[in-house]
């Protein structure tokens, strides 16, 4: 270790990963429905894609969680995005190739992808 910059670099690299263990109020939660219905409809590749995308972009303030059945099994896989202070956004009939768009437009830039939301799918 020859400089403080090196130490900071290591800290930055690892922090996103260990941050998960701190209790936090802020930060964006992305929740994937992973009950039997969700898994059967293909929630797992969606979850994996989300993780890859979040990790690729070093989004330290994003937590990917899973949850049980939300109740509308016919629209699975379902992903809900909770941004603090905003109403949650529910994406339905998700697939792995839709993930990148949601992460870039919604999570990073703050513009929900209306086309994929439950409101749109039902109309």
């Amino acid at each position, binding site marked *: *270790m020859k400089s403080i910059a090196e*130490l900071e670099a290591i800290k930055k690299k*690892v*922090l996103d*990963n260990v941050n998960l263990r701190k209790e936090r109020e802020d930060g964006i939660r992305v929740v*994937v429905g992973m009950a039997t219905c969700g*898994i059967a409809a293909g929630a797992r590749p969606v979850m994996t894609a989300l*993780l890859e995308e979040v990790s690729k972009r070093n989004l330290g303030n994003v*937590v990917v*969680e899973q949850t049980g059945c939300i109740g509308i099994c016919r629209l699975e896989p379902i992903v809900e995005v909770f941004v603090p202070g905003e109403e949650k956004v529910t994406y339905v009939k998700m697939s792995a190739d839709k993930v990148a768009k949601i992460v870039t437009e919604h999570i990073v830039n703050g513009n929900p992808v209306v086309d994929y939301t439950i409101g749109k799918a039902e109309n």
Partner: protein
Amino acid sequence: MDLYRSHVLICGGTGCTSSGAEQLIGEFEAQLAANGLEKEVKIVKTGCFGLCALGPVVVVYPEGAFYSMVKKEDVAEIVTEHLLKGRIVKRLVYSETIEDDSIKSLNEVDFYKKQQRVALRNCGVINPENIEEYIAFDGYKALATAITEMTPQEVINTIKESGLRGRGGGGFPTGLKWEFASKSVNEQKYVCCNADEGDPGAFMDRSILEGDPHSVLEAMAIAGYAIGANQGYIYIRAEYPIAVQRLEIAIKQAKEYGLLGENIFGTDFSFDIGLRLGAGAFVCGEETALMTSIEGHRGEPRPRPPFPAVKGLWGKPTILNNVETYANIPVIINNGVEWFTKIGTEKSKGTKVFALGGKINNTGLVEVPMGTTMREIVEEIGGGVPNGKKFKAAQTGGPSGGCIPASLIDTPIDYDSLISIGSMMGSGGLIVMDEDNCMVDIAKFFLEFTVDESCGKCSPCRIGTKRLLEILDKITKGNGTLEDLDRLELLCNNIKNASLCGLGQTAPNPVLSTLRYFRDEYVAHVVDKKCPAGVCKSLTNFEIIADKCKGCSACARKCPANAITGEIKKPFVIDKEKCIKCGACIETCKFGAIVKR
């Protein structure tokens, strides 16, 4: 580095390891692989969470679900339900964390609510075998600040102003100790760490080393910079294999990352640390004996002065601090003096870690601000005394300390209040006793320990403690007299005044403090020839109350000495000659017909 969506923290402290945590790790790995989750869920072996009574402990993040007493068979359920489907297995979650069917944060549980984790900040949070996780939680930042931005004197001033006092027992101001050593002029100086935790029932230093070894290494390097030393030694007992192993890993990693070794952070400062394993003698926790042992001699103390800061290891100026003291140093430098001095009382700053043991529900490790009362620790954090029994006393400071009786349960715990009531902080063992404990027997227990552990170099300790034990033994056998009580007191004071080192000077404390607060129990032993708690076998008789006995013969069948006889459906009797007073009959009797008198 791959991002995991969930972390499974499994306690790898000694307590949980002995209750089977190692097998859990293997089982989790197997189950995660079977469910294809190994890339999404990370298993982290951490240090102690503190709630050893509920081990093995497993915590799953981001939810923060606190699973307690997890068995190997439960792992599959946690993986398929919680990690796969997101349904927390409530059956296995620590019941205190469930309220109205939802999981509440661990910090709101009684056990953690009043705690403030400073020395234990990373225990149960990071993987102690991974230096990068320590760095992520501000590790080695204090060292960087100290050696690149501060002068050695500034470091010493910071520690002095923080009011940090030695956590090993004596409570000597740490900054002052460093200043003495820095003023001693010598080209070779040493920094030592006392990890020879010897009090029966104390395990906080062990837990810090197991859970956060780098915090000690970092602090020792800071100390080295402050006093002008380039070599450190950690003296640790070989009886702590997990701590030794993690320290070895930590030292190796710190060297690989250049955080120990030559020219740290590109400065002129170089520092190295070596491990020295002790064989587990209590006296080697005494600073001069410890250094004699590091030098390769038999661990015996020598008179002070000269103090180690002037003439220590190999005759060179040396500072010696305890593990917990060191664990506080990096936080003080990172968070500042002002932050630290806000915690605690006027003369005792910061927090103290206690190892809670004995008759208490939540056996484990707790860290509280100085000035917290014994009642808060025992009743609120510790969850009180089990089986509805009454709190009788708590022993602080192990064999060197004294007892705090129920009447003083509201005493704030800090260095000075404890000394004023005849006890001492010690390293922080806290043994809780209930009404079933005989105080004479407790004093005898601690004396047996000190007699065994006396190194024999000075006669007040070697002979005096032996004579003390003989008198106590005589009292517990029912042969004591009132004069013996006076003799005990006189002898205690002589040993305190005349012994060479801390071991002898404090060895009479358990006797003196029990005499002070429980003299009536001593008197009952010598005058009435009774042991009120029914512990001293020679003074206790087992009897069957004829009115209550149904004549079921359960006790007679259980008695290992065949001392109980009688006819079925008629009251049985115990033959006092044959009775070995093991108490098996009392546990067997469903009618409460057998009593100790």
